[in-house]
Each structure stands twice: as C-alpha cells, then as structure tokens.
C-alpha cells in the first residue's frame, strides 16, 4: 500500500449504477483509470431503465440506455459489483480504502446463461419492484430483460429454500448449467481507490402521505413512475396502457403536478423537482400515441409550467397544439366518482368558474427526493447534506462535496434531468481524475492477443458450432440435424453441436478446434449476436483469427423461443439461418482494427467561464491546451455578472480564474484570434487560426458563449434604449457590480420576465432569467428593504433548489403578477416617468404601476459567429441556433462529430454552476481521447471504389458524421475512416454502388438473401 504522499492510486470507486454512475465509470475507465462500480441492486441501469420514453426526443429509454450498459458491463477496466453496498470509507484523497459488502446472488454469474428456466419453474410469485409492484416476478428473477449483467438472482426474502432449506429448490433442479448456489454468502471486500464518485440517484416521492391524492386507496391513482411502466412495452401490460382497476385502456387521464414538490406544508419539500413538468407532458403525448383510438383526453394540472430545457418549450407548444389540455390549477382532492373506479377532479378554469371533470386515471407527477439509504451512506462517508437533504455542493464546485476526493453527480445533489446528470457524471469523472492524473494507466488492464493468421489466400474453411443452449434451443430445434446439415454446406469443413457454446470450456475448445482444423471462418448458431458476438469474436482472436471472420445464426431468440410449438418449422428455419450465415461468412474479409493516433493537445474555443474552466481542467492534467478567444480579454459573458443564484460573487471568482489561466504553463492563450478553417478528424485535427498559425490537436471544445438579447424595437421594446432607467438583466448586474448608490433610492421597480422570449420569433425559454431576476429583486430588497418590487411573469421557472429564491421573494413582499400573451404589459413614458400597466388575472382588472426602474428579462441569444464556427467544425445547430449535441439525452456535451465537445451558453442558456459542470464534462469527454496514444476506430466502415464513384455527393449529404467528403483533387468520395460509424446510409444512397460497407456489403447481403431462398 502506498502512502498518501506517494503517487495517488490509479483507480476510482463509483457508487451507484444508474445512468450518472455508468457515465462516470465509462469516462473514468476510458481515460485511463480502473473503476469499481458499486450497485446495490442486481443490475445496473437505475431509474432510467424503468422509463418508457424520454423527453424531448421521445427516444425509447431502453434503446438508448442499453448500449451504454453493455459497454459498461464488458469494459475491461470496470469492475462491476452488483448487490453491493459501501460500508465505510477511510483514508484521504489519492488513497482511500473503501469497505464494500457484496451480498449473495445465490446464482453463479459465471455459469448462469440467463435462459430463464429457473424463473419459469420457480413457484414463488412476488410483486416486481421494477414494475413498482404493478406486475409480478418470481423469487429468482432477472431485474429486467435488458439487465446488465444479464444474470439471474435469488431474492432471499422471498425464496422458499432460503427461508426453509429443503422445501423447494426447483431452480437448482432445473438449472441446466448448475448455476444455483444456495450456500452463497455475503462478503466484505476492501477496495483501494484514489477518489470516489457518488451517483446515488434519487427516490421518487411516495405520495401515500398526501391523502388528498387518494394514492394507495383509489386504484386508479398512480404515480408517474408507475405510469412509465404502464406505458412501457416491457412493462406489466406490455405497453397496452391499462389502468390498474380493470385493465381497461383509460380514455381520460389527468396529471397532477408538484406532488411532493414545491410543498412546504404537506410534503416538506420546498424545492422544485425540475423534471416533472416535462415528463408529464411527455407522458400525455406518449399516452395519446399509445391510445388505440384518437380520442384520448389528457389534462395536466399545474402551477407553473417549467419547460426550461433545450427544446422543451417547443415540446410544450406541440403538446398543446396536439390537444393536451393544460389547466393552471392545483387540485384540492382526487375524489372517487362512485362508479367504475373512475375519479372526479374539481378545478377552477381560466374563467374563474369551477369545473368538475371525470377521469379514468389520475397520474401523480411525483417529485424527486433524497433516497433514505443514500442519505445514510452520505453521512457514513462524512459527506455534508444541504437543508433539503441533498448532497451539498457549491456554485463554483458543482460536483465536489465537502470531503476532498469525494465527488458527486446526478440527482443526489439536486433534482435534475438525465442530460444534466450525464453532464455532471462526466464532470465528476474529470474532478475525480484531476488528482489522479499522474497515475493514469497504472492500474488498468490491457488484453494481449496472438498474431493473426493471414487467411486471405486460403479457400474458405468454415467451422459451424451449433448450440443446444441446454434445452433452450434443443427442445424445439433438432440441433443434431442442423449440425449434420451444416456439414453439407459449401466451405464447411467442421460442424459440432455444443450443450452451451458460451460456457468457458466450450470456448476454450473452440479456440483449439480453430487451430487444429485450420478454420478460417466461424459460424456460431446460438443466441443473439447483440450479446454474444463479442465473446465469440474474442475467441477467434485468441485463436489467432481476425474477429471479423465470424457470423452468428440466431436460432434461439429468433427461432426456438418464438416457434415453440413448431419444431419442424423451427428446425428448417435454423437450417436456413445457418446456411445464410455460412453464405455470408464466406464473403467476410479480415478487417483492420482501426486506430487513430492522438495529438495530445486540446483546442478550446472561447475564454469565458466555460472555456477557461475546460482549458484548466485539461491543462491541470498535464495536457497542453490552445485557448482561442475572439476578444482581446478573458472572461466573456461572466464579466457582467454580479452573483450566482447561490449568492457567490462572480467577479472575484472570475479574477481568480483568469489569473490561473494566464499563468498556466500548459495553456497557450491566443486572444483576439478566431478559427478560420478546420481539417482532419478526431485525434488529428488541424485548425488554421486567424493569426496565421496552424494548430494540431486531438480534440476541441467549443465554448463560445452567448449574448443577451436587447429589444431595440418591436412590441417588447418597452422603452429600452429610450429611457435611462430601462435595463436588461445584465445591465442591472453591472450597476450592482459598480455598487451604484442610486439603486437604493428607487421607490419602485418593475421586472418584466419573458420579455420577447417564448414567443413565435424566439420560441425557446432562456432557463436562467426567472432565477436571475428574482435574485436581483432580492438584492434590491437587501439594498432598500422598503422598495416596492413587482414582477410580471408568465411562468416562474425557478427549477430545482432555486425555488427557495422564489419563496424568499414572496416572503419579502415582492409582488408577482402573471400575464399571458393575450395581455402583455403595456409600458409608456409619461413626462419622463415610466408607466406600466398589466392585467392581474386574479383581480381580473388592470394594474397601473409607476416604477422608477424597469428591468426586462430578455432572452439569452446565440452568438452571431456561432454560424461561422458551425461551418468550420461542420457541426449542427438547432433551429434556435444553439449547438446541437450528438444526443439530447445521453451525449449532452458531445457533437455528433467525434472529438468535438461543447460547453456553456453556446449549447443552451444555463446558470454558472451548470456551465462549470458542463465545461468540466467537456474536458472529461475530451480527456477520454487525449489520455490515449491512439483511439480505436470503427472497423466496419464504408469504403469507396473510385472506379465506380462519380462524385455526385449524395453520400456526403446523407452522412450524419461528416465522415465522407469529395476529395479536392479527384472530386470523388473519400471516407474518413476515423469518423465513419458504419451505418451504411451512404451505401444505400449511392446509385452507382461505389460505396460499400466492409463485411456488410451488398454482395454479402445478397449472398444471405440467396441462401435464404435457396430452398423454396
């Protein structure tokens, strides 16, 4: 054991296997650290795996999450510890010792093949907590179908044998691979790590204590989490959306917002849970899609509609346009209708009259709260919690806890959505690796393979391995017949039937057979390549064969399991599938394991808080950074900020940041410089700057910031630029910074929020203005407690813990008056005095105000040169002209083009803490590239036959990754292998067959078609 003053440990412990923990683990492992991922349940995936679709893209949650989980599960440098809990953490940053208890699974993961026979035969049915009890599982169970690891576990609280040994033991009797081990015992393990990341997630608020909701008493009142399962195709009603009482499809559904949030009276949670508005809208939209008929009525009852994220407002607009009803009203009680288990809601309409409406189902948009066990763990580890019980963080250190070396990410520090959690996960990975940088790659493992045999000139010698999968395949498909048949196929020189092809002994045997028989192509007919292809490909490599000389025939998941009653047909189909695989593998070629060498330098564009934070985060790891700023000074947008919503003064912080940047030996600062042209791709960019220099860099971070909109004309002008006491938000901040004494003298101040935002010309919500304006109002109150302050707003969007500012503002007597677009405030000048008139919706009459100062909360506006940068880096933008990330949910700082990342306001408006987190996240993502000497690139890439290419450019237009371009000289299409993802859009788009995909070429597909139809 090394002592703390020595080199730090090169490993890290991530606690929590939800999306945040998984992302943090992947980022750490990819940038050269060994990761112990501790998960308390039997599989990773967390809350996200329970969701049906995700907003605002309506992506299928399982679809987008699964690949990450599989990657995590297979990662050589991630030690996945499920059913495990951290008991204690000793030591300090750089050298922690964690004590982890691993609870027994009672199923040997090395032997379990996830065939499911055990669960089928297990007599004990129990409510399935994955479906929140809406469905049933067995005492031996798989957490969910796509679980990683895909291994069964026994629930010790439910298992008949474990309660009374000798009583049942069915699973042990039927398990074909002898994986059941009733004698499994808990183990305590000591892990030495350099830092710790807490990604403990959240618990959904339990609404049972809110009796008015009827939850727990009225069967058709469900939580949103339960409703996700009702919507999910893999949920208890298979996506048919049935309500609990009678399993009928509801025709009228209501959502009640803020259940367990923004409620200090009953729920004791003053904060806003941040995600519920969007998920409720999403559920309403998705429910309407699920509904068999067109007439599903959906109503959302809310206080303020908080759609403050990227593309959220558009989603809200679309939902309204599609007929989702929105009622600004808090429901008193959910009442039984007295028939059919329907429910009655009484609410006040826009007209002030009381309506009564009947619903078939009421969904409670429950908030997020700190998990009880997580809070206990935090206390055990000496991690401070904030008044809301979340892990305490600060504006400038958003992913750090009070305990050095212990970082935090995700909803455990404040309620937040998936992209924000993922962003923080990456940021925490960066934070955790900062101190550990000297020990990078010191504890990681790398696999060595024998040299590969060149089989190019050999005639095909194909080996076919037909799996019985215990009885999973063999009970339906005549595997012996399939094996015999395989031997007759052209090119096949060896065929064998195995009980479990994936078992370790068979794998070893397969490698031997490949060598002994001189096989140069292999087909395995078993389960799905999606889970098992990597394993068999690994075997090929171990046997000295290129791993791409391999095909699978899926005769289990897509044959024996789905044609259980038709053994003859299933056997014929298995033969066909084997023949197709053989036909295709004959055409397969050895492919290169592509890599791209990495220039270990980053280019950071923009030297605001985001850019500087990103640059420092990378430079602190010893990696050189070229920091390019268009202006002549550092600081960017933040120079105009007075304080963060948490109350920290920005200017002081900024000064410190600038000093660090200026004095950093690894930062090459280029002020007054811009980017002219970018060439190359991930690992090997070459960027021409306006100073004439050319920078080679392996990755780039774009952090060019944004500006604030100045309403110089139009209906939102409001005397701006015409009256000296009309400001936009940051102009008032400037007066705060200057400590303008005149401010104290103001008798009345009016704020107009959403001034020119959330309208057709500028449809997005700028996310920060409500909080910022309220904080300014509070500051004015600090300066002059007698000042009258009015805020004219549309929805107050103080999401998360920012809600406390809103609360405080009301306590201080600040008056909030809501307006809508039909009645926007009127402002005019009467002999130098500002006059404001707004219609108060509660009084239902106009209110006249005579402020001394008028503050307009205007939009955060993308920079005009964003377009230029977008063209130079060939990266996409949204219709609002913010940069478009590769994936709204799971890749929030990545561009679709590899090696380019974004941070800060150019991505979307956000407060300081989020900007810093995103900058660190971008640095972490860039580090996963810059930490490597070379990075792997897709092997199955497109390739152009220049003899056939005519340079029409269709391929370049349909490529989502800019991975194909017309060569300047030949004017013919050329693939940039490092950027190609192998999707084949170019192949299908090419009329002259000039582009093909390696090993998934037209001829291979045609061979498979031909083989499929050989026997008709």
């Amino acid at each position, binding site marked *: 054991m090394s002592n703390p003053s020595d080199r730090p440990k090169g490993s890290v412990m991530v606690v929590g296997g939800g999306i945040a923990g998984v992302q943090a683990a992947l980022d750490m492992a990819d940038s050269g650290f060994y990761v112990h991922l501790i998960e308390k349940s039997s599989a990773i995936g967390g809350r996200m795996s329970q969701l049906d679709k995700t907003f605002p893209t*309506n992506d299928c949650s399982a679809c987008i999450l699964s690949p990450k989980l599989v990657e995590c599960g297979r990662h050589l440098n991630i030690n996945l510890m499920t059913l495990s809990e951290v008991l204690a953490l000793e030591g300090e940053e750089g050298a922690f010792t964690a004590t982890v208890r691993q609870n027994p699974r009672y199923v040997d993961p090395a032997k379990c093949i996830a065939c499911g026979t055990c669960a089928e035969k297990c007599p004990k049915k129990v409510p399935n907590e994955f479906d929140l009890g809406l469905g049933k599982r067995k005492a031996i169970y798989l957490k969910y179908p796509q679980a990683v690891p895909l291994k069964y576990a026994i629930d010790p609280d439910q298992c008949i044998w474990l309660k009374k040994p000798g009583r049942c033991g069915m699973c042990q009797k039927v398990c074909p691979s002898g994986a059941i081990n009733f004698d499994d015992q808990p183990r305590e393990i000591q892990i030495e790590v350099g830092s710790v990341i807490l990604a403990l997630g959240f618990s959904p608020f339990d609404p049972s204590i809110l009796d008015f909701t009827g939850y727990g008493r009225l069967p058709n009142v469900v939580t949103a989490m339960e409703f996700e399962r009702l919507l999910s195709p893999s949920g208890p009603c298979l996506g048919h959306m049935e309500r609990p009482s009678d399993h009928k499809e509801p025709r009228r559904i209501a959502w009640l917002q803020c259940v367990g949030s923004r409620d200090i009276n009953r729920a004791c949670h003053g904060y806003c849970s941040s995600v519920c508005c969007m998920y409720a809208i999403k559920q309403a939209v998705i429910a309407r*899609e699920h509904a068999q008929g067109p007439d599903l009525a959906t109503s959302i009852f809310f206080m303020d509609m908080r759609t403050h994220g990227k593309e959220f407002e558009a989603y809200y607009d679309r939902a309204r346009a599609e007929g989702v009803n929105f009622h600004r009203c808090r429901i008193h009680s959910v009442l039984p209708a007295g028939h059919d288990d329907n429910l009655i809601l009484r609410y006040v309409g826009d007209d002030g009259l009381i309506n009564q409406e009947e619903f078939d189902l009421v969904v409670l948009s429950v908030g997020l709260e700190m998990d009880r066990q997580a809070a206990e763990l935090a206390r055990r580890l000496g991690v401070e919690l904030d008044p809301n019980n979340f892990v305490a963080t600060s504006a400038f250190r958003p992913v750090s806890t009070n305990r050095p070396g212990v970082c935090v990410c995700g909803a455990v520090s404040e309620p937040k959505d998936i992209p924000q959690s993922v962003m923080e996960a990456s940021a925490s990975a960066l934070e955790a690796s900062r101190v550990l940088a000297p020990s990078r790659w010191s504890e990681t493992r790398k696999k060595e393979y024998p040299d590969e045999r060149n089989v190019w000139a050999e005639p095909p010698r194909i080996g076919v391995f037909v799996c019985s999968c215990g009885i999973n395949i063999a009970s339906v498909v005549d595997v012996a017949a399939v094996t015999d048949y395989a031997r007759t196929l052209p090119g096949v020189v060896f065929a064998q039937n195995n009980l479990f092809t994936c078992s370790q002994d068979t794998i070893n045997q397969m490698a031997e057979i490949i060598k002994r028989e001189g096989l140069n192509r292999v087909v395995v007919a078993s389960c799905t390549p999606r889970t098992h292809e990597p394993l068999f490909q690994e075997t090929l490599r171990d046997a000295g064969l290129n791993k791409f000389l391999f095909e699978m025939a899926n005769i289990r998941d897509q044959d024996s399991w789905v044609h259980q009653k038709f053994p003859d047909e299933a056997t014929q189909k298995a033969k066909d599938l084997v023949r197709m695989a053989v036909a295709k593998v004959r055409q397969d070629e050895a492919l290169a394991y592509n890599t791209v060498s990495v220039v270990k330098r980053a280019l950071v564009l923009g030297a605001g808080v985001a850019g500087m934070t990103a640059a420092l985060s990378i430079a602190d790891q010893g990696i050189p950074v070229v920091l390019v700023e268009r202006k002549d000074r550092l600081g960017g947008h933040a120079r105009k900020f007075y304080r963060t919503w948490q109350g920290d003064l920005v200017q002081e912080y900024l000064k410190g940041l600038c000093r660090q940047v200026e004095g950093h030996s690894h930062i090459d600062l280029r002020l007054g410089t811009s980017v002219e042209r970018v060439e190359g791709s991930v690992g090997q960019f070459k960027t021409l700057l306006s100073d004439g220099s050319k920078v080679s860099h392996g990755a780039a971070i774009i952090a060019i910031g944004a500006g604030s909109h100045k309403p110089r004309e139009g209906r939102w002008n409001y005397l701006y630029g015409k009256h000296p006491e009309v400001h936009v938000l940051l102009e008032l901040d400037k007066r705060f910074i200057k400590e303008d004494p005149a401010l104290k003298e103001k008798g009345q101040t009016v704020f107009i929020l959403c001034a020119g935002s959330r309208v057709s010309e500028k449809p997005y919500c700028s996310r920060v203005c409500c909080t910022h304006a309220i904080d300014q109002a509070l500051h004015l109150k600090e300066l002059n407690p007698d000042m009258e302050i009015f805020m004219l707003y549309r929805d107050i969007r103080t999401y998360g813990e920012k809600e406390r500012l809103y609360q405080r503002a009301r306590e201080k007597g600040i008056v909030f008056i809501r307006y809508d677009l039909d009645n926007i405030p009127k402002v005019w000048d009467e002999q130098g005095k500002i006059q404001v008139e707004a219609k108060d919706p509660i009084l239902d009459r106009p209110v006249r105000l005579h402020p001394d100062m008028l503050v307009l909360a205007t939009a955060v506006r993308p920079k005009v040169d964003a377009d230029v940068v977008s063209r130079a880096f060939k990266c996409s933008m949204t219709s609002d002209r913010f940069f478009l990330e590769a994936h709204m949910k799971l890749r929030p700082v990545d561009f679709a083009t590899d090696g380019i990342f974004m941070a800060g306001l150019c991505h979307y408006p956000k407060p300081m803490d989020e900007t810093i987190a995103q900058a660190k996240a971008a640095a972490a993502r860039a580090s996963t590239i810059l930490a490597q000497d070379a990075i792997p690139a897709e092997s199955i890439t497109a390739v152009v036959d220049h003899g056939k290419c005519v*340079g029409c450019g269709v391929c370049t237009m349909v490529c989502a990754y*800019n991975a194909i371009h017309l060569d300047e000289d030949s004017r013919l299409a050329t693939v940039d292998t490092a950027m190609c993802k192998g999707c084949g859009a170019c192949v299908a788009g090419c*009329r002259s*067959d000039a582009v093909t995909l390696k090993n998934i070429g037209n*001829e291979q597909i045609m061979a498979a078609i031909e083989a499929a139809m050989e026997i008709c």
Partner: protein
Amino acid sequence: METLFSQTTEAIRREAKDLLESGKVAAFLGFVKGSLPTVTRPFVARTPEETDKLVWNGLCVMNLANYLPGLLKSLEPPRRPGEPPPEGPLPRVGVIATGCWSRNMVIQIQENQMDRERLVILGVDSHGMIDRRKLEVLAGGREIQSLEETDERVIISGRDFKMETARQEVLRDNCLTCVHPSPVILDKKIGPTVPERRVHEPFARIEEIERMDAGSRWAWFQEEIATCIRCYACRNACPLCYCPTCFVDDSHPQWVGKSIDKTDTATFHILRAYHCAGRCTDCGACESACPMGIKMRLFTRKLQKDCLELFASEPGLDLNSPLPLTTYQPEDPDTFIIAGSKKQGTQGGSEK
C-alpha cells in the same frame, strides 16, 4: 416562312458565332439538321463557321444537358491524379437550354458534375417538342420523307401522301404536361417568353394507372416493357444517368441479370426510374431515344408525382434546395409504415 423556330435558329446561330469568335467558349452545343426528316442531331460547333449549321425546331428532343459533363471534361487539358489543376479558368461551353434541360443542369451542378462558371447558357422557352412516334402513327406506317413545321402546324409527306396536323396533336406527352417551359438558369434569353403553363391534371395518366387494380397495373407494366431489348438508350439519353458503371452493368454484385428476362427487364426499369427519383425533370429524352417505343417515362413521372405530393419537392428549380433523397423532414409522411408510425419527437435542427 418566318416562324418562331426560324427566328430562334437565327438568334442561336448569331449568339453561338459571337461566343466562339470572341473566344468566350471553346465549343457550342446545339443541334443540326438530321439525315432523316423526323430527327435532328446534337452537334458540337468548335469553330464560328460551324454555327451556320445550327438549327432549332420541334425535333430537338435530345436533352443537351446529357452531353455537358463529358464535353466539359474533354475540353480540360489532360491531368494525372494529384497533378495540380491548370492555372486560370478552364475552357467553357455554350449551350442551349429549355426549362427541363436547364433544371437538369442545375442538378448536375448540385451533384458536382460540372461548374456553373463553365457554362454559357442560351435560354430558350420550349414550345414543346414533337413525338416522332406520333408522326409515325399518323402516317399509318408509311415512310415519312419530309416534314415542315410552322408555329402551330406540322406537315408530313411521303411517297404517296401528304398530311397536316396541329402541333399540339403530335407533341410529346411530357411536353403536353410541362409547367416549367422556361429555363431556370441562363446567361441570355433567346426568343420570346412562353407564359408559365397551367396544366389541367398534369398527372392524369398516372392517376388513371393508379386507379387500376394491382393485376391490371402489372399487366400494363409487362406489356409496356415487353419489347425492351436492354440497349439502354433511355439510360444513356438521360442527363441524370452518368454513373461510370451503371448497376445494370455491374456483375459484382449482380443486381440485375443481363439478358432479356421478364424479371431482369422489369428490375432494370424499376431501378432506372428509382435512381431518377427526385431528380427527373420529365424532359422525355428517355422515351424519345427508345428504339422500341417504350413509354418508360411513366415510371419516372409517377415518382415525380410522389416527390411533389410527399415532399413538396420539384427538382432542379433552385441550386440551393437539396434534392429530396439527400434530406429529410422530421414530419415526412409515414402513413405507409405499419407499426408505430404515430410518433412525435423533436429532431433538433437538421441543417449542417
């Protein structure tokens, strides 16, 4: 007799001569009189003198855009791969363009087959071109030995007959339904402007076929392509078909059998049309070129109709609008998708 055609012919000769004499172009692409009364011959004039032979009449059915990429290439000084391009501008070509031809030029420019800068386009509004198959039918199989054309009439005669008809009666089908007779890109306009046409039911024939049942449609399709000899005149007359190796010629992979087989011939026609999807301007060159009189234009016409209806796309009208198969809209129709087509989602921006 002075006709629009004779006036235009004069103007073309004058302009072409100017262009060649002044050295603004290295070659001028037009038509000369053919050796048969019903055909004109595409022609490249390389000297001012040769321009005297140029003609413009209702028989100019070959789409000149088809020749441009090759002609331009042939005028470039030979260059090995990697060798830097020669200094200064490359030689230019003058060309006549009607509405559909100019739209094909737009597409060729969009698809990087040529540079706009290297073209000098003399724009001519099309009055519609004559279908010589219709003339043959009119002549009842008798050999046509001479043809006269005025602005409104066509007179044909042979060994023992002489007939006159309205031009409208013998125009090509594509010209009858054309709504864009005027060139969309041009450097100089020649001759009078033809007003934008409003065509009543431009897709009447397509709709008629659509109304038939599947069996009848198949019978119609088979009948239509029955005489195809796979000579590929339709393909080669088409300015969109410029692939060095057409899919029909490829043996690896062998998408289509090479001989005359019912399925292979059908596959050829389906894919040829499909490859023109969203690009075809309905110039009719394919039909005019076919030695067997096959109406393969109907297949591309169907695609044209669908592109218009599904994607509101008419190709070649604008250099800056992407061709329909190289772009998408999140809300593109998906009623044909049988599971889960009801779906709403945010696509962010799609521009690059």
